[in-house]
């Protein structure tokens, strides 16, 4: 068993790489939300050809493993852009990871946003239009806050899944917290693997608790005045 000083040193070595994990996660979340919003809007509108394209995209992104997608983007995108004489071989691998994870999470987030938008009663928009708001005003002031409040628990689910997916980034050479753990295990010839994996599991749990607290705070703000079925 380890002693306390070794454990503390290990934890600091791992937390050293935490900014990289958080960068990948937050950037992927932000871009994924934007793209997911677009995809959800297309699926709600249901015009023929864009709907078909979006359905195929969402199906592919949700049904294939993220590792396969990561390799496709990391090895395939430079080759694809080479056809247009754009050389991106010296880009930071973090950018490839962000591209992959944002495309992947956009597919899942589009379903989350679609279900949340459709859950808001149509009567809310009718009432907003009847007092003279425009479509955009009714969307931003009335529908969006309610839809956001409904989407929040599912958003938390997907955010936590995104956090765990970033552990795949080691396979393309990024040293994030999981990558650091693999390096430590390799350097110590597998001596203290159980302790190290327990530590990394705890670190992931702490980050997840932080995410849950954030989601709970947002939920408190966005479901204010909402009367639920539990009296």
């Amino acid at each position, binding site marked *: 068993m380890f002693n306390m000083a070794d454990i503390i040193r290990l934890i600091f070595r791992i937390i050293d790489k935490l900014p990289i994990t958080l960068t990948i996660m937050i950037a992927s979340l932000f871009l994924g939300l934007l793209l997911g919003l677009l995809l959800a809007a297309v699926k709600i509108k249901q015009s023929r050809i864009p709907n078909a394209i979006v359905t195929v995209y969402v199906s592919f992104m949700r049904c294939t493993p993220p590792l396969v997608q990561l390799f496709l983007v990391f090895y395939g995108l430079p080759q694809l852009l080479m056809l247009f004489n754009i050389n991106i071989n010296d880009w930071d691998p973090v950018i490839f990871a962000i591209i992959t994870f944002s495309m992947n999470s956009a597919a*899942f987030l589009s379903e989350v946003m679609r279900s949340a938008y459709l859950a808001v009663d149509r009567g809310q928009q009718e009432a907003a239009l009847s007092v003279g708001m425009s479509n955009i005003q009714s969307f931003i002031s009335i529908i969006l806050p309610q839809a956001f409040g409904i989407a929040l628990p599912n958003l938390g689910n997907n955010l936590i899944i995104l956090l765990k997916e970033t552990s795949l980034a080691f396979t393309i050479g990024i040293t994030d917290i999981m990558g650091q753990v693999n390096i430590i295990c390799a350097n110590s010839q597998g001596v203290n693997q159980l302790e190290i994996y327990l530590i990394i599991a705890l670190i992931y749990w702490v980050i997840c608790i932080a995410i849950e607290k954030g989601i709970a705070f947002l939920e408190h703000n966005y479901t204010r005045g909402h009367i639920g079925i539990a009296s």
Partner: protein
Amino acid sequence: MNFDIDFAIRTFPTVLKAAPMTLLIAVISMLLGLLLGFLITLCRMYKVPVLNKLAALYVSFIRGTPLLVQIYVIFFGLPTFINYLNQAMNWHIPVNNISPLVFALFAFTLNTTAYQSETIRSALSAVDGGQMEAAYSVGMTTLQSFTRIIIPQALVVALPNFGNIFLGLIKGTSLAFAVRVVEILAVAKIEAGDGYKYLEMYLDASIIYWIMCFLFEKLFILLENRLKRYKIEITT
């Protein structure tokens, strides 16, 4: 890089034979997780005194730790726990011949329960509180109002998110190899190990996963359209 397409086509049926096992684990875990997730959500929504905090801790722990870690904990911990129960309560549950499928189902059910409880919580909170009050006012019990009024409305909101979770579960079953359950990716690795033809086998496995997921996506869309009928509007 030579890609042995003959090998890929020849061993496709072998990998396909493991598809029912993957489906079995995914579907049973999903259904059991639905039931347990509903119970956990009820504890949290109605703020049952002790179970409320326990449920929140459970959801936080299961979502916060990796699935593989949970599978190993169940694999090594469940026999010990059953032995303890056998001694404490004088039962005689056989420990030594537990099929690895039981471990896999246990671990996947516990895992998906946590994610589904959040989805169910979001879906139930999307239903207006007035529905419950109206149900009470015509004399329904809570159970009747849930089954006849609330759940049909909540199910429409929840279905796309259940689809997300189920597709994640199908991909997650590939970890069941860690407890010696022979499912799709396990067969792919075994077949590939002979001649180190990993790329061909992973391609086969990916195609089968994609077809399976695609079929289930269609199923979920069908279900959603069928359940959305009560929402037919006159104006858009």
